């Protein structure tokens, strides 16, 4: 079956511009996660959705970052007024979001590489 997909795969933008990153989770997965992966920094948690609600937004670095999820499926991460330090790979993952061993496994997308000039 189809995995997690993300678009675009690469995005180059100028400092100060807004960008939108999209994530299509696996069908039926209720939980969706956004991470940022910078060189040598591992995966930094940004936000977590259960359905359309976001119980944990604690990882969003600033108010320039926002995310939404509609219809319990597609999610968009928006970065306003991009800065050079926003350059990173943004990863999306989804999981069944149910109790139990199978429900906790995250499936990752290929990521969006964002470069802010």
């Amino acid at each position: 079956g189809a995995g997690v997909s993300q678009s675009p795969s690469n995005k180059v933008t100028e400092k100060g511009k807004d960008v939108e990153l999209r994530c299509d989770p696996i069908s039926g997965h209720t939980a969706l996660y956004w991470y940022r992966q910078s060189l040598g920094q591992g995966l930094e948690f940004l936000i977590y959705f259960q359905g359309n609600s976001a119980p944990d937004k604690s990882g969003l670095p600033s108010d320039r970052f926002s995310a939404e999820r509609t219809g319990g499926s597609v999610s968009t991460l928006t970065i306003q007024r991009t800065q050079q330090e926003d350059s990173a790979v943004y990863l999306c993952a989804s999981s069944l979001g149910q109790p139990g061993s199978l429900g906790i496994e995250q499936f990752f997308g290929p990521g969006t590489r964002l470069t802010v000039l």
Partner: protein
Amino acid sequence: AQSVSQHNHHVILSEAASLELGCNYSYGGTVNLFWYVQYPGQHLQLLLKYFSGDPLVKGIKGFEAEFIKSKFSFNLRKPSVQWSDTAEYFCAVRSVSGTYKYIFGTGTRLKVLA
């Protein structure tokens, strides 16, 4: 706050050598633990996970990990590595209570020499 420490940032081994990658976490409650692997040019994928029960967990490709609760550790092991194990390995922890977010370590880059 929860955190995950991976002490080895870069590891270089020859084929057939044994591997052990360290992972320690800080969290006092009940946790689930994971090792993910990212092969060059590929997505992150799950190697193995600890959910409950037997603390010795076996995963894909001959990897295993042992959860030692008293040491807050979940070290990854493989008795004999192959060139194809060259990848970056991430340890992660998820609290069973609260908001269920996952905290990842900074990763260990493993290079296996043929």
